[in-house]
């Protein structure tokens, strides 16, 4: 979390674009990863990420920081948009398009085994329920706290722990089946 995140939010709420720009810089990779892992489609992920920040910027005045982390608010927007995306477009997305890799920062030629395993895991993740996917990405990929995750999925912290455990078990099973 940014040290002066609270100040940036206050400034952004006041209409200061540069303050929101700094928040964007901080959260863009996480939100992009989150959306990409959910959609498995780079172009769609870029469009949706753009929409997430656009919506956040337009509605930042409605954000109330009392006990509700800004990250959770962004993830919640992202989650809603990806759900809408699935409702509208999922039947039209081919399997070929549903590839997470190669993405910037990963060279599949250099480390083909890791890339293949990770690709397999990405496919297995898409077999999980929406809430399970969200919890796994937020907890294990973006390393958000239980509290932040619970706020984003609108569940209790206990429920998040349970979902997380169940999701990991499912992933293990799905990965074993693929081998």
């Amino acid at each position: 979390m940014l040290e002066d995140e609270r100040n940036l939010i206050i400034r952004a709420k006041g209409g200061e674009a540069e303050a929101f720009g700094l928040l964007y810089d901080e959260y863009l990779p996480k939100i992009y990863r989150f959306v990409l892992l959910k959609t498995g489609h780079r172009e769609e992920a870029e469009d949706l990420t753009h929409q997430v920040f656009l919506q956040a910027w337009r509605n930042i005045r409605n954000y109330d920081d009392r006990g509700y982390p800004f990250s959770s608010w962004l993830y919640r927007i992202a989650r809603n948009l990806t759900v809408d995306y699935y409702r509208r477009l999922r039947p039209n997305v081919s399997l070929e398009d549903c590839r997470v890799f190669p993405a910037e920062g990963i060279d599949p030629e250099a480390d083909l085994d890791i890339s293949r395993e990770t690709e397999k895991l990405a496919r297995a993740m898409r077999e999980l329920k929406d809430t399970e996917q969200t919890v796994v990405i937020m907890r294990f990929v973006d390393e958000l706290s239980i509290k932040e995750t619970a706020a984003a999925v609108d569940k209790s912290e206990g429920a998040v722990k349970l979902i997380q455990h169940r999701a990991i078990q499912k992933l293990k099973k799905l990965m074993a089946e693929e081998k």
Partner: protein
Amino acid sequence: MEQIESQLKNFRKIQPDKGFALMCREDLLASASAKPAIKIDLWRNLGLSLSLALTAMLVVFMAQNAAVSSYSIANLEKFEEETALSQDQINITLAEINYHSELASKTSMALSEAAAEGPSHLNQNLLMKEAESLKIDSGTGDVDILLDQVIF
């Protein structure tokens, strides 16, 4: 469990394209500024609230009046119906009063004549005299026969 978790950490290497990140940022901050702040003016808001409250009261008052008026109109119609019925009843009663009054005066007149002249109308001689003056012939047997034929 640990293996899956470490594999999941590999996803952190995913980064958005730098070109996309830059273009998205510029587009976002240039074209979609936050909605302008609404300046809260206490007195203006107070005035607005009062105006709204007064308008609401006026609307309620007018609605009530309209309800009362419609109720009055309905009542008036009912009243008129009832009045028409009463008018008929009064007319009937007046006719009865007139009839009884006329009857009473005629009865009174007849009684006073009878008291003054005595029962002269029952005098046998007078009746005979009147019968002769009417020249009623005694041949009424035909009529009786005809009546018997009709009846029986």
